């Protein structure tokens, strides 16, 4: 890039990469600002079914910003609905995630005319203790999807810059690593200190998907446990689809406005979905379902090793296409499992009043 300083890192690794011209992988800051200005900012009831919400906002070619972190408060119910609805040519943006992008990737492997991923801007894609994520290993290793690598802070703060309405943000990481070469950030000389500082472009998803602890019907949302990057993603996105464990009265929101982490103007739809992050965890409600995640992961791993899609197709037919909505899915998971997961959360304290 022109007028760019660098930390001169090209001799450290054996990396080979193609220089790419900078482009936004979703809405530009100006486009996103304009869209936000033109939205209705009324306090209006935004509750609707997930089918309606997804039908209204999800289309081919969008940048989809995925909330949660690894297995925590991951918006699985929304992902299931997106797979039923279909969405091709997606750009995915997230910091670290497990089952959400894996579910989309599995859907792509089964039927790329229904769901397909074009590229991913991310920090990490895996299952931590449970193992590597087989679908990303398959897709990225074979060059089927394009990757753009940042750190967890990098992706989080790119959403934060977008949520602040600024086009980029300076950070003190990425520089001197190969991420400086391959991602869309840029090293400059700080105009004040005269020293090198790395800049990251804001990330505005077309649609952000988040699952929250509680929200009112207007979309004012509380999050207990780690926020992950959900407030920033919701505020960065052109449209935000929100599921929440519990819709609470606006009176409660107004009693403790400090507890609102996502404000209503940035939220487009609200759907109460209990266990909406299952098999992920939701602090104060349920722990993650390690057995289910292991089961899905091992089906994906079998595909990666053998190329046989039968078990994968069976999983999607049973748990996604065989369900009208998340209640149907939870019925297949079963009361005993859900009760156990609730017990394992241990009643972490949350405020719903």
């Amino acid at each position, binding site marked *: 890039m022109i007028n760019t300083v660098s930390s001169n890192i090209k001799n450290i690794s054996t990396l080979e990469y193609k220089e790419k011209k900078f482009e936004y992988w979703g809405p530009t800051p100006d486009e996103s600002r304009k869209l936000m200005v033109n939205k209705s900012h009324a306090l209006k009831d935004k509750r609707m079914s997930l089918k309606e919400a997804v039908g209204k906002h999800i289309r081919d070619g969008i940048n989809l910003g995925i909330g949660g972190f690894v297995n925590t408060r991951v918006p699985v119910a929304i992902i299931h609905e997106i797979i039923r609805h279909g969405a091709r040519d997606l750009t995915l943006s997230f910091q670290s995630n497990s089952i959400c992008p894996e579910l989309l990737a599995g859907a792509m492997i089964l039927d790329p005319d229904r769901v397909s991923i074009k590229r991913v801007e991310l920090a990490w894609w895996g299952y931590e203790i449970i193992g590597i994520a087989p679908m990303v290993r398959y897709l990225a290793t074979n060059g089927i999807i394009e990757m753009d690598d940042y750190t967890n802070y990098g992706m989080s703060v790119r959403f934060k810059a977008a949520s602040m309405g600024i086009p980029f943000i300076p950070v003190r990481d990425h520089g001197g690593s190969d991420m400086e070469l391959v991602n869309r950030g840029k090293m400059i000389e700080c105009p004040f200190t005269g020293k090198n500082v790395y800049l990251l472009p804001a990330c505005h998803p077309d649609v952000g998907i988040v699952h929250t602890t509680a929200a009112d019907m207007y979309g004012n949302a509380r999050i207990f446990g*780690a926020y992950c990057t959900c407030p920033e993603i919701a505020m960065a996105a052109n449209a935000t689809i929100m599921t929440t464990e519990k819709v609470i009265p606006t009176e409660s929101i107004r009693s403790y406005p400090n507890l609102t982490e996502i404000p209503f103007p940035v939220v487009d739809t609200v759907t109460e979905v209990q266990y909406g992050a299952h098999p992920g965890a939701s602090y104060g409600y349920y722990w993650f379902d390690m057995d289910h995640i292991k089961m899905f992961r091992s089906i994906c791993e079998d595909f990666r090793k053998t190329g046989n899609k039968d078990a994968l197709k069976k999983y999607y037919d049973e748990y996604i296409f065989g369900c009208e909505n998340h209640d149907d899915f939870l019925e297949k998971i079963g009361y005993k499992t859900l009760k156990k997961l609730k017990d394992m959360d241990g009643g972490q304290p949350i405020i719903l009043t």
Partner: protein
Amino acid sequence: MSEYTPFEMIAYTGSRVLEDERIVFVGTGLPIIAAMHAQLTHAPNLYMIYEAGSLAPILEMGMPLSVGDTRAARKACYLKGLCGAFELTQRGCADYAFIGGAQVDMYGNICSTIEGHNYDKPGIRFPGSGGAGAMAANCEKTIAIMALEKRRFVKKLDFVTSIGFGDGSPDYREKAGVLGSGPYRVITNQALFGFDEATKRMMLLEVKPGRTPAEIQELVDFELIIPPDVKEMAEPTDEDLRLLRDVIDAEGYFLKRVIKK
């Protein structure tokens, strides 16, 4: 002295290198176990940051299985999100980064992104940086856990994910715009490494009792600095093993893993 496993030795050594009254930014698995062990023994005022957003939790519900585990938020002093956790770090509140990776070089740079040379179509795609790249940049000191194998202690990385001392030049990190002082220790089950102040190169500090520095050099593809005063690694006592096995990782999620060849 009881028998101990390689994972137990790594966790115990990790605990030993953490000082009291410090803050450690932990990664999933052995770093969490090492920090919990340190808290229960010599460092009761050591606190953890978990990147999903919690500072100084009390882990009374058991060991978090991942850094995003909701249990890691239990009774924290401060609980925000990833931006909050990493901005504390960028500001200078995190003393240690505790990370892992697939490859490390003589200057403590670490790869966890790809194996192979071609970014767009690598031999193997790994999960990616996660928090590691940011931790290695901006925590004050970086501690890495690695398996001691020639294919991992390499002359040249496939991809630099987490910055160490770069090419070893004295101003590399400053030019890179990062803040922390960089690599501090590399922990394996057979040897503990540090870094030479002048050359920034990896230096052997301690070997497992019974091993020689020459044997350790055999397992490393680049030339180690081997000072004359290499010490023996301390071994976990029965009480350390009881804490690791019965108190910290009682379910054996990390310590009882089978090592895949």
